[in-house]
């Protein structure tokens, strides 16, 4: 991944910064140009909550390019306490212990390395709430 591309997405991936609709209160992640629910473009900065519960998950055993060394790893759809859904990696847990409905909290983690000379990519993942 190019450095500018990585850099400009840092607030979203590392702090879960997004936008909230001023008109109807709907939160979209990732942010959109207009509210997905009401179509308004009156959007204000909003940081997603750091807690939620697992709506669905999968254990990835056959990974795409760049993630081969990390299998098996867990991907999940998390419903945050403000009801926003996000797709993220679930970490710090044995894949066989993951279950739908489990409470989770956000944590800053390495995601992958872009080859031997590329940048190391970081983002928010979620782990079982402690």
């Amino acid at each position, binding site marked *: 991944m190019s450095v500018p591309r990585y850099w400009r997405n840092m607030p979203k991936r590392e702090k879960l910064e997004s936008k909230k609709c001023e008109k109807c209160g709907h939160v979209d992640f*990732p942010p959109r140009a207009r509210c997905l629910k009401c179509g308004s473009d009156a959007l204000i900065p909003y940081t997603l909550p750091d807690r939620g519960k697992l709506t669905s998950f*999968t254990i990835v055993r*056959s*990974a*795409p390019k760049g993630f081969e060394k990390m299998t098996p790893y867990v991907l999940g759809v998390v419903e945050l306490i403000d009801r926003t*859904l996000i797709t993220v990696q679930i970490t710090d847990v044995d894949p066989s212990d993951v279950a*739908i409905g489990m409470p989770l909290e956000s944590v800053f983690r390495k*995601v992958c390395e872009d080859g031997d000379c590329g940048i190391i990519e970081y983002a928010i993942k979620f782990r079982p709430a402690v």
Partner: protein
Amino acid sequence: MRKVAVLSYGMTKVDKHWRKSLRELYGDAAKNALSSVSIPSIDALIVGNMCASDLSDQNNIGALLADYLGITPSMAYRIEAACGSGGAAILGAYTAVASGLYDYVLTGGVEKLTDGVGGNTVYSLGKASDAEYELFYGSSFVSINALMMNRYMHLYRTPREAFADFAVLMHKNATKNPCAQLPFEISRETVLNSDMISDPISLYDCAPVGDGAAALILCPVDLAKKITDSYVEVAGIAGATDTLNISSRSDILTLNSTREAAKRAYRMANVSVADIDVAEIHDAFTITAALSVEDLGFCEKGRFGKMLSSGEMEAGGKVVINPSGGLKARGHPVGATGAYQVAEIAMQLSGKADRMQAKDAEIGLAQNIGGSGSSTYVTILRRP
């Protein structure tokens, strides 16, 4: 707007065509479509393709194929809508003919997946999802669909067996399709015991990787009548979209793009779901089949397993689903798949489907999805 007909079609077998290039595959399909009718010219070429720029290092596919087929200087371009590219190309060709801009449009799709090396093919297919927010986390096309399947199993208490049985039916249907990539029967255990790719999706829940091309000629119904009596009419056609990111949807188990495209296509054709005799649906994974059957309106949400086990998807049932074997067993040459589906429905309605033939089929539907539901193209054909 002029009424539009599918005048003719041609398909290659879906397979790992090691000896054939992208242009040769489409050339074979196009030659089949062209050889069965006599037309004065091809006025335009609109072709669907997803992965050529990644796997064949080739862009500018419209001109490439016009050049290869010897139809320059006719207008040509390629349409990309991930796995929905074929259906999108047909919608493009439909509007080009219906509007009166072109009379004879060669359309369809082509995909050459086996030119990918190592993990490139999986990575290229993954680009159908949101690269910056889904792919970034190490998700693949399979794992995004696995998130939907796990949720479905949890919410509707559906066991893996119900999904496995759909794969079994698809393989059975494919034994009658000369163009199918996997024309052999399997058992429920074959699916359940196959390697887990991304829980709960195992290898036999997935469509295979393969190459293929399907070509169709669209023209005004008034001209088609003078050329052949085996044309079929495009009664309804529509496309619709949804968010790329599945977690941005209000319900990850509803394919809104399919619902919306189907609603518009039914309305345009002036038919209801009960009128559909035969359908080719987009079963990229067994879970995609379940969501598609439900969101097209063939059964209520969560009732896919019941509809399947009661035989309602086979001859004598409510609707014949995927007599070709579907993506699961006919194969899924991604950007060509939607074109195969429409060609197969045209074949059914003109009574030329041979051993695959659905009895007395008059109205048929093809549903082609791009991404994990981010776009859908629905085409309804009618026997004139």
